[in-house]
């Protein structure tokens, strides 16, 4: 019992919560690009 409450339980709880948190956030924030970067005259390596 001790093994389940101290090791297995927390691992399962942590994994489930972690996967839910990631899944939810990614689902809510991932969206296709709103514009086509090729329409811009200059393509940048990055932005500051």
């Amino acid at each position, binding site marked *: 019992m*001790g*093994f389940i*409450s*101290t*090791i297995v*339980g*927390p*691992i399962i*709880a*942590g*994994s489930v*919560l*972690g*996967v839910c*948190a*990631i899944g939810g*956030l*990614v689902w809510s*924030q*991932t969206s*296709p*690009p709103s514009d*086509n*970067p*090729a*329409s811009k*005259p*200059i*393509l*940048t*390596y*990055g*932005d*500051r």
Partner: protein
Amino acid sequence: MTRTVARPWVRTAALDLWPVLLSVVLCWPLLVGRGIPLARDLVFVPRQPFTDDALGLGDVAPRAVPLDAVVSLLTLVVDGGVLAKVLVPGLLALAGCGVHRALRGHGTVARVGAAGLAVWNPWTVERLALGQWALLAAYAALPFVAVAVVRLRLEGSRRELARTTLWTALASLTPTGGLLAVLTVLALGVGRARRTWAALGLAVALQSPWVVAGFTGAAGLTSDPDGVGAFAARADGAGHVLLTLVGLGGIWDARSVPATREAAWATATAVLVLVVLAVGLRLVGRRLGRGELLRRAAPAVLGLVLAALSTTGPGETLLRFLVVHVPGAGLLRDSQKFLAPYVLAVCLLTGVVLAAASRRLEARTPGTSGWLVAVALLGPLVLLPDAPTRTWPTVTPVQVPVGFHRVADLLAEEDGPCRVVSLPWRSYRYYPWGSGETSSDLALRLLDCDVVADDTLRVGDVVVDGESALVRDLRDALAAGPPAEQLGQRGVGWVLVQQDDPEAAALDLTGLDQVYADAHVALYSVPKVKYVSESVPMSRRYLSGFATLVTFLAVGQACASLVTVRRRSRSAAAADEAP
């Protein structure tokens, strides 16, 4: 009642699963999609040819030496798309595996927490979002280098010397990683034993491919000083840039920063890291002593100082001076990459703090410390919940149109010198059939030719010049007249036109002979080419060959040494068991 105690290797393997799971999440689209990754700096091609650039003999700065040569070798036997699926998540997971191995004896909570943080933290996520997988290879190798070299100093065994050499070789796939590994060996390893000096010598010898390429190459050894400001660390959120760096973030590129870093999360991470540093350093100092602590913290402190240097006025002035006047100092641009040892140190200290907290909780209320595992598992995810929103677009693989492969085949059939100019003239491209991200030019890695493309980097409004004299010459020539008139006399026999580019229609291609064309790519041959006899002098080829030989000898000797030591210990064990 008896309780089964897992064998150490079973336990270690079980602990490996957490960093593997996290890296799978960060690289998910790469693992499930078909094709090759082609975004930002992350470019793999199905079969990467051996070109002079890959060997450091080309006209560009040896930033990917010997990395490109190693990838070329690997793609001889494995498709580049498959290789990316193994290497990118594998190296990321390896970092976590190395960190928890370094914390052997500190308990499950410490090892799981530190391993997770090593994979899922702002630095690794931002670097992966920028596509710099080779830097992650160095990051993954560093904990193994550190453990091996400390053991070497304490035990002086041949096995640890070999291990140090092999892990240093992995880190040294790029000049930055090589520098970090040499620094780690120097700070943590050098002691009275002769073998520790041998380890340092071998670590330095492993840098010979890019050092030789840099000093004998045609590319300038100095860089554009504007790159210092353009690639300096920046604050992820509203806080000060130093606070961002302490909190493991601060990459120069705003597009690689997850949205939550812009908010209070970045500050919360920095505050937590400060607490971990305060408590962890005290705990470690008590155990190891002040001298040893200073020695082990040296690479991390130096990394943090280097990363912060370009963010201060005097620091930026100093770096600009170095970049212009000191050969090879261009490596110090984008200084936030040097945070790698600091990030690893924070992960290890997090493990130490979690172990101490677990012991204290267990002493107070037995049976409750297990819940700390949940905290250790969740911690990195809560602090950076939207990491995949930045890594997924970069790692999403794409299917390259067949025309590019047709062009590659056509050029591969050509005998004699082959020099191609990639047009329209720009360094970073947007492929409408791609992942939606800009990427470095596909032709640079795909074609078995000397491909010349613009090496100017545009960061927002800042233009950072490249180092290649040939590129400068061709840029001026193309500005002066049409390709058919300008390129032949400069030894350029082919023009590759990337038809998807919005500026492709404006190119003046009169006088060029079309060899292949489709909607995405076209290949033209240039009439009246004045071939340059041999672009790379033989002396340079010999020197480069010698540097490669030194590297192979160092790695080969280390492998042989490991095998010999293992055989000897096996036969000694067998002799002990014999009646």
